[in-house]
């Protein structure tokens, strides 16, 4: 039996929240839907912000999720620029900027925010990149012709920003505290391959050396009265820059849930079906759920996960406990850097065996498999989307390592 509800509130008007709203309507929910977002913008898509939007190749119209017509058809109580400030699960009330309101179904999709470098708040020229306002600020700096950029953190956001900046003619230095750039996600060996791609495009990539201090000079026209002029690294070396972008990870937005009655532990803790409490689900970057495929609690920050989990969580609210299904995706993401498309499906592990099954690593066009303990764990492709997706299907069937190698045996 479907669950009768009159009023579903979605907190977070980005990807997961948008698709949750769209799914509720698609599945026939006729009650009121409130979509509350703390940014003053209509729902938009973040991937272009570090790529084509930052490059100035596409405008605002290409970044919106859906269009005005589609958004209107969802018949939402859309409240933008409004922040949820509290929740009482037992009382079924949400607090929005101090004002309490009832709900009988709630989707938590508040996402995450960027970590920042200590002591850089308000320093001109220092940015993170997550929101469209962030992207506009970095793009504006590039538009006025800054020449030297430092990217702190060799992760995927940093890598895309570096790629875009190189395309715009900036001299880019990328700094990573860990020995292996991209190693946390790709492992040592493949992280080094991606590092090689960046160095090949002229990026001065320094790994295994952390930032000691952000160097500034007085600038009376700015918020903190300071402007970035460079960084000093822990080895004592200094790098001059006019623009610094930190891509050093994100923090799930759960502060507002203190005292709500929900369990919070690096994200909103959910069961296998994305249910956090009766009548409350979570989706996207903020959701920590048990992925039954792996038997592990996980929180995934990928675009595709936000879409799929937004859909799944919304549907969960319309289902009884008996109807509910576990959310068991194989994680997948892509990243566009220079003329390379990097795609990773599944997972990696520091101890995994890595086998190149197609293409040429030297040419930066290949497919690599990750295996551990007889199990096929993940697939990495660089400019090989067809084979990545075929392999992703194999991962969804929980194929063994041997089965995976046989599957890929005929590839060039």
């Amino acid at each position: 039996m479907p669950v009768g509800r009159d009023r579903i509130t979605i907190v977070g008007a980005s990807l997961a929240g948008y698709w949750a709203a769209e799914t509720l309507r698609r599945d026939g929910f006729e009650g009121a839907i409130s979509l509350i977002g703390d940014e003053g913008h209509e729902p938009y898509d973040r991937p272009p912000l570090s790529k084509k939007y930052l490059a100035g190749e596409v405008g605002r119209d290409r970044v919106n999720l859906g269009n005005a017509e589609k958004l209107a058809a969802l018949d939402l109580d859309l409240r933008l620029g409004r922040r949820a400030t509290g929740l009482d699960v037992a009382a079924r009330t949400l607090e929005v900027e101090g004002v309490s309101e009832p709900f009988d179904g709630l989707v938590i999709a508040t996402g995450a925010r960027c970590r920042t470098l200590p002591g850089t708040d308000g320093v001109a020229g220092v940015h993170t990149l997550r929101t469209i306002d962030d992207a506009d600020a970095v793009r504006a700096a590039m538009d006025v012709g800054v020449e030297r950029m430092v990217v702190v953190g060799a992760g995927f956001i940093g890598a895309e920003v570096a790629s875009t900046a190189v395309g715009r003619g900036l001299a880019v230095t990328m700094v990573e505290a860990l020995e292996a750039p991209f190693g946390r996600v790709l492992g040592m060996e493949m992280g080094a391959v991606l590092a090689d791609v960046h160095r090949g495009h002229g990026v001065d990539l320094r790994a295994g050396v952390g930032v000691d201090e952000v160097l500034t000079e007085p600038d009376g026209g700015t918020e903190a009265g300071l402007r970035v002029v460079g960084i000093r690294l822990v080895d004592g070396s200094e790098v001059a820059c006019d623009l610094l972008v930190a891509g050093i990870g994100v923090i799930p937005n759960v502060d507002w849930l203190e005292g709500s009655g929900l369990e919070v532990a690096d994200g909103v803790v959910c069961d296998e079906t994305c249910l956090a409490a009766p009548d409350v689900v979570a989706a996207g970057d903020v959701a920590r759920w048990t992925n039954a495929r792996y038997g592990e609690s996980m929180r995934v920050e990928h675009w595709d996960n936000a879409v799929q989990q937004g859909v799944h969580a919304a549907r969960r609210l319309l289902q009884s406990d008996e109807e509910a299904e576990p959310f068991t995706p194989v994680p997948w993401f892509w990243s566009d850097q220079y003329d390379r498309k990097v795609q990773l499906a599944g997972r990696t592990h520091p101890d995994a065996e890595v086998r190149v099954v197609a293409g040429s690593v030297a040419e930066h066009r290949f497919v690599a498999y990750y295996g551990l303990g007889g199990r096929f764990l993940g697939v990495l492709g660089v400019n090989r989307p067809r084979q990545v997706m075929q392999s992703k299907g194999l991962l969804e069937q929980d194929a063994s390592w041997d089965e995976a190698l046989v599957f890929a045996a005929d590839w060039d």
Partner: protein
Amino acid sequence: MRVVVDYDLCESNAICMQIAPDVFEVRDDDFLYVLDENPGDDRRAALEESVQRCPKQAISLED
């Protein structure tokens, strides 16, 4: 139902091919080919998922 791909937006992530391999194919040249531009209504759920999960929002369906 007609499947429309905006090739100016498509960047061959191939997620559509995984969801609906009878309709979409990314070949070894890294380009997307639509194998069936007018699939039957029984394919609607898979095609709607392809629309949702296309990272470039390059796919649309017309009735």
